[in-house]
């Protein structure tokens, strides 16, 4: 019978900051897990993949979460509750521990499908016992059991209410991973045409009952299919950074101030770790020493000591010795953080393409200061109504470099804020002029060509309305995880467990995520063909010819490293080349 001595620590646990999660993976290795329709991956293999991907993610996240692994349906029995004929063929493979590569290797090499069967409810009880024993006296934010099974063993539902009661009291949450969807079950299953067995149908009912009792509203959302999970877990999750608050005061002149708090809202995320250089033989960092030497610009490259060098700067052709001390004394200084309004201007005066800087700040009032909230709201709404922005001087901290920026009003259903983006200084701008594209007679496209491009745009629209008039975006860049890091972690993981194997090919899902959506790619085929006919393909202008044209026009450097590519040149351009 299940233990009834779970202590309720739930409330206390939630209070603890930076607390960790304890999680037990409970994997069905029973013989039915190896059964599958021809051509389909057996549930066991799928479940193993889910676990591998999940553990992999945990390893790279390098947090303090602890993980245990319980196998049921295994040939051996190894658990605290096993007695006589109870809790047989359930094996605690790993106690609660921070996951590491050894665990990944064990899963890869030592976890095999068994020839036995075990009741998944019994296994659940073993997991609860494990969690209870090993978390005793320690603080955890969350206790969780992840059940991966095909529910194909007969279970006795008579203990179900006691188990649910204990789960609730211990504050343990549950997640199920099944080979079939929770709502598509019954006798007409969509998966592979194979109907659910009587055991599976019964198991599914019990799963629903457990999950709904734990969370009436969203309980069923914690029941996943293996294939869904593999897809979702393939995405390496970034480690959420706690947003850093930047408290400051918005000032308008000397007599109007509003307390504010700024947060980075958009900023290029970079991986936390970088590569370090090691000796190729020993793989030891300490075996390598980087040495910087200074030498004169004479023929002998005479080395000089660092102490015999001083700091200087270039001022055009002049080289000006300028010591650090002097520089600190003479440099521009700021006296503290600032968010001071210089004035207000029309939003249309600010060119989006002139934004500089590498971040966007969202500026709110402090969350416990309703007066500041009202005052800031007054400014935000006034700016929004007038279609204006505040031009502000922004200084992050004392002696930080001052920035000039625009604070845009932003009003959402749930909140209001200012959006601050840095604007350029005069020194940051390059005013290039380019020959006109439109006021050029030679260059006017025909109606024919314009309409061909017009239909191309139609066929390649990424935002479309469905039949209910709801707009759907087929390609949201802000939903794509940064492919650079996905690829990096894929390779790191692969290399970690297969040190001598070459790097794996790119994950297909990643390649697909970066391509034109299939629907659009299909749709635009015909318009593209038409467009191609309007702009007949011409063979390459080769490097040599480009050089000739360089001699002719003499004002630019062309054709670096390009040759034999196909470009679309109009006949008139080709004629020019020939003349050259």
């Amino acid at each position: 019978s299940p233990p009834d001595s779970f202590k309720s620590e739930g409330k206390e646990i939630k209070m603890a900051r930076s607390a960790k999660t304890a999680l037990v993976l409970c994997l069905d290795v029973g013989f039915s897990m190896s059964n599958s329709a021809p051509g389909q991956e057996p549930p066991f293999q799928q479940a193993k993949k889910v676990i591998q991907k999940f553990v992999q993610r945990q390893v790279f996240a390098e947090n303090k979460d602890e993980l245990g692994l319980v196998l049921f349906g295994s040939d051996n029995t190894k658990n605290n509750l096993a007695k006589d004929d109870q809790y047989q063929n359930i094996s605690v493979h790993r106690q609660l521990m921070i996951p590491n590569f050894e665990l990944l290797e064990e899963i890869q090499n030592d976890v095999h499908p068994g020839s036995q069967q075990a009741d998944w409810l019994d296994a659940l009880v073993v997991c609860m016992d494990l969690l209870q024993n090993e978390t005793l006296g320690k603080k955890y934010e969350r206790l969780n059991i992840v059940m991966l099974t095909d529910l194909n063993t007969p279970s006795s539902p008579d203990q179900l209410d006691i188990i649910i009661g204990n789960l609730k009291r211990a504050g343990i949450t549950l997640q199920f991973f099944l080979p079939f969807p929770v709502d598509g079950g019954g006798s007409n299953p969509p998966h592979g045409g194979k109907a659910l067995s009587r055991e599976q149908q019964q198991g599914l009912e019990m799963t629903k009952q457990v999950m709904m009792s734990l969370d009436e509203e969203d309980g069923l959302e914690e029941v996943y299919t293996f294939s869904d999970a593999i897809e979702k877990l393939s995405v390496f999750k970034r480690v959420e950074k706690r947003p850093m608050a930047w408290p400051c005061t918005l000032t308008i002149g000397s007599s109007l101030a509003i307390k504010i708090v700024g947060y980075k809202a958009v900023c290029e995320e970079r991986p936390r770790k970088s590569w370090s250089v090691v000796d190729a033989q020993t793989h030891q960092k300490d075996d390598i020493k980087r040495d910087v030497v200074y030498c004169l610009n004479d023929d002998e490259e005479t080395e000089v000591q660092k102490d015999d060098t001083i700091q200087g700067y270039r001022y055009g052709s002049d080289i000006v010795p300028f010591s650090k001390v002097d520089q600190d004394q003479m440099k521009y200084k700021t006296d503290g953080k600032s968010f001071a309004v210089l004035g207000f201007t029309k939003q249309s005066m600010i060119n989006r393409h002139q934004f500089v800087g590498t971040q966007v700040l969202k500026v709110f009032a402090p969350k416990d200061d309703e007066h500041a909230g009202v005052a800031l709201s007054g400014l935000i709404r006034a700016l929004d109504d007038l279609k204006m922005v505040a031009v502000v001087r922004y200084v992050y901290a004392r002696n930080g470099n001052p920035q000039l920026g625009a604070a845009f009003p932003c009003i959402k259903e749930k909140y209001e804020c200012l959006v601050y983006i840095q604007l350029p200084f005069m020194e940051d701008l390059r005013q290039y002029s380019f020959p006109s594209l439109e006021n050029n007679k030679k260059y006017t496209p025909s109606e024919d060509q314009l309409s061909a491009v017009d239909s191309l745009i139609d066929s390649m629209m990424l935002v479309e309305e469905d039949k209910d008039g709801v707009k759907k975006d087929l390609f949201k860049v802000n939903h794509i995880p940064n492919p650079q890091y996905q690829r990096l972690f894929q390779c790191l993981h692969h290399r970690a467990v297969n040190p001598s194997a070459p790097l794996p090919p790119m994950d297909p899902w990643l390649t697909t995520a970066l391509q034109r959506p299939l629907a659009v790619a299909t749709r635009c085929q015909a318009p593209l063909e038409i467009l191609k006919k309007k702009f007949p393909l011409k063979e390459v202008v080769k490097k040599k010819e480009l050089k000739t044209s360089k001699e002719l026009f003499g004002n630019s450097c062309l054709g670096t490293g390009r040759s034999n590519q196909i470009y679309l040149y109009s006949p008139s351009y080709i004629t020019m080349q020939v003349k050259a």
Partner: protein
Amino acid sequence: PEMARLVHASMAQWNDYHHEDEDVDGEERDESGVDYKSTGRDSLVFLVDASKEMFIMGEDEEPSPFDMTMQCVRSVYTSKIISSDKDLVALVFYGTEQSKNPRNSFKHVYIYHDLDLPGARRVQDVDGLRGEKGAQVAGETMGSGNTNLGEALWCCSNLYSDIKLRLSHKRLMIFTCRDTPHGGDSERDRQARTKASDLKETGVVIDLMHLMKPGGFDVSLFFCDVVSPPEDEAELGLQMEPCGKLEDLQKRVRAKEMKKRSVARLNLCLGEGMNVAVGVYITALQARKPNAIKLYRDNNEPVRTKTRLYHTQTGSLLLPSDTKRVQVYAGRQIVMEKDEVDVIKKFSDPGLELIGFKPMERLKLHHHLRSAVFIYPEEEMVTGVSNFNPFFTMCSVRNVFALCKYTRIRNSPPRFLALVPQKEEVDDGQAQIAAPGFHGIFLPYADDIRTLDTPQLPTASESQVDKMKEIVHKLRFKYRSDAFENPVLQQHYRNLEALALDLMAPEHIEDLTMPNVNMIDQRLGSLAQEFRDLVYPADYNPEGKTAPKRKPAEAAGGTEKKPKVEMSEDELRGHVQKGNLGKLTVPVLKDACKQFGVKVTGTKKQELIDALTAQLTK
């Protein structure tokens, strides 16, 4: 030899730019610019008319054409120093009485500055030619005399050919207010035209910066055959009006002085087999203080740094191939070859790949990551018709942006760009203020967007909003992106300038980022108090705790430097006798050195103290 050294030195910051948080191996050289070593230097010659007409003041105290030109030359000099310090510049006068050129073979041509990097001294020289006094100086040193533009152009062509460096872009700007420089001498006209075409054949682009002249400046009388043909036909109609104002002249010079450099030349791929060749340009990018360089103490000459890798145990030099790269996760070392680390970042070949189109309103204001790029078809193609034009036109007509996958170089991971069409705009003087082409806006990935807890706070009432509108109304101004100078950079360069020219103190900079608090308070009058009364309870202090209260006077005064206190000789002698010179700061000591004419070789504090002590105990 000096030139050769400079090639080694750090490159102009614009070109040297890379992201702040670049990692150790310098892998992330994302939008870094062009390499001068491979493309050569830009060069610019100012050929300025020094005839009497150039010195006639305009109406309403307008500066003379000569004065305006000198102001322009000065601003080009200083801006070159700040943003493209590898470019070569020369200043040559024609129509002078005196001649100064190598071998003095060209009469009435005066080379004021050879083709070289501009420096502090040159800036000072040009300053000396400004204003009434400058006109006098010019009269005394060069005078006004005969004009022979052909000789002047010939002399300039020698300037170019004397340079041993590879020059990538050669430009010559003629500043004059005379449309018939030779007064109808057809032989000299012909000679000038011949020399001009010689120059053009060697790749020099000749521009005319013609200035206002009573009765109008007629380009067709002579100069149309001297200047380079415009880049395209449409431009012919542009910029044919002479400049009457300094601002216009500066704008015109600025637009021409810089060679457009693309950071990448790629194919914009619309679909299989449908490529348009485009250039990627950077038009806004944060200029930063350049890195300091190390100098040898004895001669103030730059030293080179060499980085070497040693094996700690054996002491032997290691080649890059003797190393591998490592990251540690969960206690395990994961080892890769350098090549593997690079190749992981490769997704596709360099290029812009069209994904599809979206309505403009789908482009979110706050989706900003870094400075945008500018996309323009390869210039060589502009003369013909490419499919860029209809593509550009229709995006503009349909008010859509093109979503593209952007791979800048081999092994650079993809980013998505929103290509936003920008229609050409010209100002009243027919100068282009917005170039036609696409702005490429970098879009954030999921990882780049942070989830924030948004506070639940009450919102303002209509009356509160209305009061703020009054405040906003009072403080309206017309923002111009080129109106604000970077005070940090300006101060840095003024400091260098002062040190290079031995000035007592750096020129004062005006910090335009500081709010004009007095003006704001004055304009607002009682409005600020009225708004406060509407939103804050009587006992509420909006400046409490989070930010230390700043005195308004201090805020208004900005960070102006304290005026320097000159030390009297007695005071200084007192310090020397008591041996407490060491308590003074280095700048104070330096000032003292300057004040008493003490020569110092180094800049170390002890050196200054020693030099002062030696001088004053004589």
